[in-house]
């Protein structure tokens, strides 16, 4: 933090307060005074104190707190609720609390004077702990306490010059005046950095906001940012500054409903995309969202589920009836259910708290059920802007977001109250299909960026083992759902059965035919073999006869003493016969 190290850029003194360094581009101007102004109870003292505590604990810069309104003991007690142990810091000489008491009624004033006593006190305090940071809370006490304002003003000017020479970073607080930043015009002494705090009540809901009014020599966030005072200090969520520069993931994550994955070109949602689930009351938005949450936890990822309507135990009980055991994931720390009533805070505070919870829990999937719960917290334009910031922020973090939105009966179904349809990547519409005197649920994908998705309306059935998407039946009067679908299914089953029977019958007939044919073949073959036998027998009888004939002839020739003819047996029968005749 040496001036010579960076001669051109303004040196900054990091506050360590979440978000404040972001909007001031690194902290407060080092070695210069900063004015922190705002109305009563807006958190000036707390912010100033956190600046010192963080400086002492995180940046090795001891600090002096000059309190004009509260004693050191009161201050210590007040900030103990934020987890700041001032006594320990004071004991280790990292912090010095000095209570400057000025009460007009306790002294007389006569003649000239100056505030050298204050300078000396301050200088002594700074030197005794080698302080780098000083808080004056609030120096306006001097105006109220000292009668001669001319002297006070002249001395204040001298004080700030002197503090600048000392090179300490000063934060001074000032009460908001009527139409001015501070009641006594402190801003005229501080030209470097002015931060305004605000605590506004709109529709009975208060929101704390912070704004950098001016910061000489540096760029800074100019908007009003909501801030929270939480158990561990102040957090500012400068989500208005979010840029659209997230990288789109190609990874896909299943929805938890098998056939819905199929509809989304077989793989489910893109990781880091935003999904809107809209529908009228009772169309099963929470069931789809809870199924998605359950699938997320089952994969070993974490899911943060914000609800505006049902308490965590109610959600778990309700989802238990459709076969989703959410309790096990809560116990394993993979699922967190948070229920906040919409009117508990203003829109900005809601958003800031959500972002804080998300930052702490670091989930892969965030579900907000329903965003229409935010309707009461602002105008549609405000809500859209806020949601846009939230979605951009979530995308930047690569967190997949599912928003449900309750569409009011009678209004256009494909319209969201928060008008955020253009912000989401995938939009699932759950709808009532009213046919044949019954209402059934249907689901279709209105849009899904970067994937070839199904264009069919599927019937959506909630069973005690989860959500099921069924086939689409198109009847003469349109899509068949509910009992019409069931009867259609039955009819088709019956048709299938009769078809089967027919096939079996034909098969049997064929078998019979084959058996008959084979019988015929066997008969023919038997006949043939009988014939063959007869022929063979005849042939052998002929041979016998021939042999006996030849024998007879030989006998005859012997008796007639005739010449012996050789090889007579090899001659043909005719020849033999001829021979016999000759």
């Amino acid at each position, binding site marked *: 933090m040496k001036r010579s190290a960076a001669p051109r850029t303004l040196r900054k003194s990091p506050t360590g307060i979440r978000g404040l360094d972001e909007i001031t581009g690194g902290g407060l101007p080092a070695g210069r005074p900063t004015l922190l102004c705002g109305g009563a109870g807006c958190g000036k003292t707390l912010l100033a104190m956190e600046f010192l505590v963080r400086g002492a604990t995180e940046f090795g810069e001891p600090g002096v707190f000059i309190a004009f309104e509260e004693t050191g003991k009161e201050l210590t007690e007040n900030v103990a609720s934020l987890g700041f142990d001032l006594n320990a810091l004071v004991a280790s000489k990292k912090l010095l609390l000095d209570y*400057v008491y000025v009460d007009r009624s306790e*002294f*007389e*004033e006569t003649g*000239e*004077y100056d*505030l*050298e006593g204050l300078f*000396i*006190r301050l200088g002594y305090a700074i030197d005794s702990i080698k302080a780098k940071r000083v808080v004056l809370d609030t120096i306006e006490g001097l105006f109220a306490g000292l009668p001669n304002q001319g002297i006070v003003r002249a001395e204040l000017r001298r004080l700030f010059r002197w503090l600048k020479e000392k090179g300490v970073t000063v934060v001074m607080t000032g009460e908001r005046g009527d139409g001015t930043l501070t009641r006594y015009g402190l801003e005229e002494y501080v030209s470097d950095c002015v931060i305004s705090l605000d605590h506004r009540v709109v529709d009975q809901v208060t929101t704390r906001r912070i704004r950098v009014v001016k910061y000489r020599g540096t760029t800074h966030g100019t908007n009003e940012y909501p801030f929270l005072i939480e158990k561990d200090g102040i957090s500012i969520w400068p989500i208005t500054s979010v840029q659209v520069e997230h990288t789109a993931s190609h990874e896909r994550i299943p929805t938890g409903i098998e056939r819905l994955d199929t509809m989304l070109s077989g793989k489910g949602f893109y990781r880091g995309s935003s999904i809107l689930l809209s529908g009228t009351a009772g169309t099963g938005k929470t069931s789809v969202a809870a199924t998605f949450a359950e699938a997320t936890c089952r994969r070993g990822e974490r899911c943060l589920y914000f609800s505006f309507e049902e308490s965590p135990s109610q959600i778990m009980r309700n989802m238990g009836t459709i076969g989703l055991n959410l309790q096990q994931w809560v116990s394993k720390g993979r699922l967190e259910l948070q229920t906040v009533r919409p009117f508990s805070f203003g829109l900005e505070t809601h958003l800031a708290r959500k972002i804080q919870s998300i930052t702490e829990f670091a989930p892969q999937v965030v579900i907000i059920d329903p965003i229409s719960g935010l309707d009461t917290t602002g105008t549609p334009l405000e809500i859209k802007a806020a949601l846009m910031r939230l979605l951009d922020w979530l995308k930047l973090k690569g967190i997949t977001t599912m928003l449900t939105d309750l569409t009011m009966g009678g209004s256009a179904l494909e319209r969201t109250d928060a008008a955020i349809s253009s912000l989401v990547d995938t939009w699932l519409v759950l709808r009532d299909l009213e046919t044949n005197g019954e209402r059934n649920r249907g689901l279709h994908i209105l849009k899904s960026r970067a994937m070839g998705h199904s264009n069919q309306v599927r019937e959506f059935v909630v069973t005690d083992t989860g959500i099921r998407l069924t086939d689409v039946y198109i009847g003469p009067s349109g899509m068949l759902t509910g009992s019409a679908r069931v009867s259609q299914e039955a009819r088709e089953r019956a048709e299938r059965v009769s078809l089967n029977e027919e096939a079996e019958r034909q098969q049997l007939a064929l078998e019979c035919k084959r058996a008959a044919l084979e019988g015929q073949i066997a008969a023919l073959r038997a006949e043939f073999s009988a014939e063959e036998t007869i022929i063979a027998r005849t042939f052998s009888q002929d041979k016998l006869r021939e042999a006996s004939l030849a024998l007879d002839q030989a006998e005859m020739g012997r008796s007639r003493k005739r010449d012996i003819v050789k090889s007579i047996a090899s001659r043909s029968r005719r020849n033999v016969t001829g021979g016999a005749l000759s």
Partner: protein
Amino acid sequence: MKTATPSHEAKPAVPVPRAWELRLYVAGPTPKSLTAFRNLEKICEEHLAGRYQIEVIDLLKNPQLAQGDQILAVPTLVRKLPAPIRKIIGTLSNTERVLIGLDLRPHDPEPFTARKGERNG
């Protein structure tokens, strides 16, 4: 520290206790400091002859002492005794105001109105 000796008899308007312990806080030997001390000494001699003690504290030498008496402005006169503690800031140039501040004069019947008028003017 300096103890003044009585020079003549004074007639105090109200009965005063025996010991007066006064502290004058200054920051170095500035003209204001010196004026204040001279004025104080003069008033004490006139009204508290022989019954007072003035302790001059130079905050440049003893800065740690500023906290105890809640000193902001210099010069500041603090009446330690008699109790209660009273403070007067400035060079003590208006003797009447100093006497009122030290409780050496009975208060005006309507001190508030009078003082207010003075300040605004």
